[in-house]
């Protein structure tokens, strides 16, 4: 079946060699190295015993359950969609630094989704879907998987729109929120997610910085269009803010 399809040429074969593995982007390589030293586990690295959901009213708990459920859906997008970018790096034979780092990003996003789900659960309940059906479209996808597999969409545009603009909004919202978290378990969780997200966004800007000298006017137009589309069609439609 699978091998038969390969033998009959149903799949396009990668041109894999030469396969360089030496770092060529030291700043991005440093992010990969750093990510490996900062792994954490939502089950064991959050002081769950300090959550004390019994101290909150039913109304407060419901609000928090909904907030963390919504965060779970958003983080899940980074498991279901963004990993397609790693495939794109490999298929376009981008530098190894990008590929190494992005494997950690996928792992970290999985952790964020699990952590957000756990928080909702431990606050009493995780909601597996938006209660208002029209919001499903708004919170369901940012369309990055489709963009990543589309050769007409430039990688620089995807970086600028997703890895820089959208992540920058996410991180700014988080920064504005984390210091208001008085509950120690919630605060620790937000700090840990933020620590990972800072690396994710640094990755985006470092790549754009490195590529910027070779931008053509067309690349710049692609970036502008992609960022505008992300803001208008995803952020303004309520992906993060209903």
């Amino acid at each position: 079946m699978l091998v038969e399809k390969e033998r009959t040429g149903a799949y396009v074969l990668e041109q894999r060699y030469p396969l360089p593995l030496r770092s060529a982007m030291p700043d991005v390589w440093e992010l990969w190295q750093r990510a490996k030293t900062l792994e954490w586990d939502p089950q064991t690295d959050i002081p769950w015993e300090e959550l004390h959901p019994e101290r909150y009213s039913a109304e407060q708990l419901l609000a928090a359950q909904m907030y963390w459920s919504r965060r779970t859906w958003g983080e899940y997008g980074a498991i279901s969609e963004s990993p397609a970018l790693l495939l794109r790096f490999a298929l376009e034979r981008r530098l190894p630094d990008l590929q190494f780092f992005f494997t950690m990003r996928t792992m970290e996003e999985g952790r964020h989704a699990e952590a957000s789900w756990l928080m909702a659960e431990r606050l009493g309940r995780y909601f597996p879907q938006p209660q208002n059906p029209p919001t499903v479209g708004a919170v369901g996808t940012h369309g990055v998987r489709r963009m990543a597999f589309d050769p007409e969409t430039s990688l620089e545009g995807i970086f600028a729109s997703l890895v820089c603009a959208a992540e920058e909004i996410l991180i700014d919202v988080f920064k504005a929120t984390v210091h208001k978290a008085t509950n120690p378990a919630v605060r620790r969780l937000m700090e840990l997610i933020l620590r990972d997200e800072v690396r994710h966004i640094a990755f985006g800007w470092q790549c754009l910085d490195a590529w910027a000298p070779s931008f053509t006017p067309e690349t710049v137009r692609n970036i502008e269009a992609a960022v505008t589309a992300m803001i208008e069609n995803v952020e303004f439609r309520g992906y993060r803010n209903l």
Partner: protein
Amino acid sequence: MSETSEHAARLLRAYQAQEQRFVERRFPLQFAPEVPVLRELYSQAKAFHWNPETDIAWDRLDTSRHTKATLEAARRTWSRRAWSVYPGLTESTALLIRFCLESGSLGMDAKLFLSFRPAEEAKHLEVCHILAERMGGYESDPGEAGLARASNHPFGQAALDADVPVEAYVAALGALDDQLDLNLYLGHLRSARDEVVRTAIRLIASDRARHVAFAWAFLGSRVPTLDAGGRAAVIDTVREFLAHVVLAGYRNTWLLPEKSREPWLAAEEETARHGLGASSATQERGILRATIAQLRERFASWNLVLPVVDHPELGTI
């Protein structure tokens, strides 16, 4: 557009066409464990994380104890191993996307597990690269068409192919190929005498053991529910994979076409002799047969019968 970017565009369009055959249904998005053993493997992955840079005592790797010829052999062996690890980054990523596209709101245990696997593969790749570099220099190209072909298969693309049932894919690449890879690593570990190389292999093998356990546990949760067509797809895919990929030398240099074996086979023998992380062809032959026997036994518990496969040198397997 350059030839390289034209080829990349063709590859992307192939992936795009496959992705568009699925309709992802994301909600209701279930997170609670469905297959506890898979969730447990994910928990273990989180607990047993390691860092190639800091968890291997690289400064204790004393290359001055070895001759130039031995180091040349070892750098070749670890370079070839790096090429065989590299596809894991994209294959496991593509499989993760496949699960997300196909399973809709279910299957979170497998998705969480697979969200970790690409990073684990990347760590293995980093280890192979560092070892090759320390032995004298990583070689980025097989430089021989036969070996290049045998070590470059479009399995990432196959992971996203709706015509290939996910159970068949996991059976071929997990239960057969990952299992063989694990057994080979354990064989290399038995032959390895250098303390640094032993640590490196042990760390890789501990992850690989989890990958293999995932494949068997996943199949255990799915195979009993398959209809006759699904079961036939599993068998056909594994048989094809064994006959045309494994026995064509994907993991074992001694199985490559004769003109493609050298200098890689001699390098592995020399690396094995000096305990730097390889097994002899004779040892690998035993490991391959044992792996196939092990696979047949486990398949038999689901009443899946893997037909015999003929090989010009090995005879009937």
